[in-house]
C-alpha cells in the first residue's frame, strides 16, 4: 500500500486540477496496456524500462507533470 500512497502523493503533489475523465477518454479496460517509454529514467538501475519486463507484477502508472 506504500506504493499506492506514493502514487497518490505524486498525483496530488502536482498542481493541476483538471476535469474528471469523461467517458470518451482513456482506453477500454482489459486491453493490453501500451508500452511506456521515456528518454531518461530516475531511480532506476539497469536497462530501459519495458512493461514486458514487469509482466509478473502489478504496475501503477502515473502520468504527471511538475507544474
Amino acid at each position, binding site marked *: *500500500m506504500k*506504493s*499506492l500512497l*506514493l*502514487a*497518490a502523493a*505524486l*498525483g*496530488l*503533489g*502536482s498542481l*493541476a486540477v*483538471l*476535469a*474528471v*475523465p*469523461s467517458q470518451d*477518454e*482513456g*482506453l*477500454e*479496460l*482489459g*486491453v*493490453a*496496456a*501500451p*508500452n*511506456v*517509454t*521515456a*528518454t*531518461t*529514467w*530516475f*531511480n*532506476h*538501475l*539497469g*536497462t*530501459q*524500462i519495458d*512493461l*514486458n*519486463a*514487469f*509482466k*509478473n*507484477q*502489478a*504496475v*501503477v*502508472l*502515473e*502520468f*504527471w*507533470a*511538475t*507544474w
Partner: protein
Amino acid sequence: MVLAVSDEDAEKVGAYVDEMGLSVRVGAGSPSANAYKIAGYPSTALIGPGGKLLWQGHPSGLTNGEVEAALKGAKPLPTSFLAFTPTSALEGRVASQAKAIEQGKLARAHAALSAFGSDAKATDGEKASASALLGEVDAHIAALVAAAERSAKNRDPQKAVTLYDALAKEFGSASQGVSAKSAADAIRKDPVLSKELDAAEAFEKLRSSTAKLATAKRRDKLVEFAEKWKGTKAGERAKAAATPSK
C-alpha cells in the same frame, strides 16, 4: 511497482525528483500519455500481471480494493537488475535455467545453456530452446553494458560502476566479468569521473538523510552541498533541486 512519467525534459523532472526526494521510478521525456489517451494530468493507469489494463482515471478515484485485486497473482519485483523474465519458449531441461535467470543467476545459466550445444543427451528441441534463451541472456548483458556506458558518458559514473561491479561479481573470471571489472576500474582511476563518483555518493547520502526534513531545511542542505561539490553533476543537481519549482 510504481512508474511515474512526464513529458517534460529530464532537467526539469530530475530537479523535481531531487527536490521532493522521490524514490519511485520516474521517467522524463515520455510520449506515453498519448497512447493511454489520458483526459488530463494527473492520470493513473493500473496494469495487472499479464499486462492488462485494469483501471484508468484520476488518481483520487483509485481505491485500495482495486490495487489489492491487481496485486493478486503478482510476483515480487526481482531484487537484482541482473534478473529478467525470459520470453522464449522453454523446452525440457532448459526450464530450470529460466528459473535461474529470474533469480539473477546469469553466469550459472549462461554456462549451463552454452553446454546444451555439445550435450549428446539433449534433444533438438532443448538445443534450440537453450540457444534462444542464451541469446536473451546475451542481449540482457549487452543492454546492461550499454546502460553503463551511457551513464558514464552522461557523467553518472555511480550508476555505471554499480552495473559494472554487479556484472564483475556475477561473472568473475569469465570474459563478461573481466571486461566489466576493467571498465569499473577505468572509471575509478579517471580523475574527473572519480570525483563525480564521490559527489554522487555524497548526494545519495544527503538525499536519504534529508528525506524527512521540512522543505526549507532540506533546501539549505542542498545549497550547502551545491557549494561544496561545485563543478560536479551532483552539485548541479543539488543546485537545481534547491531552486524552488513554480
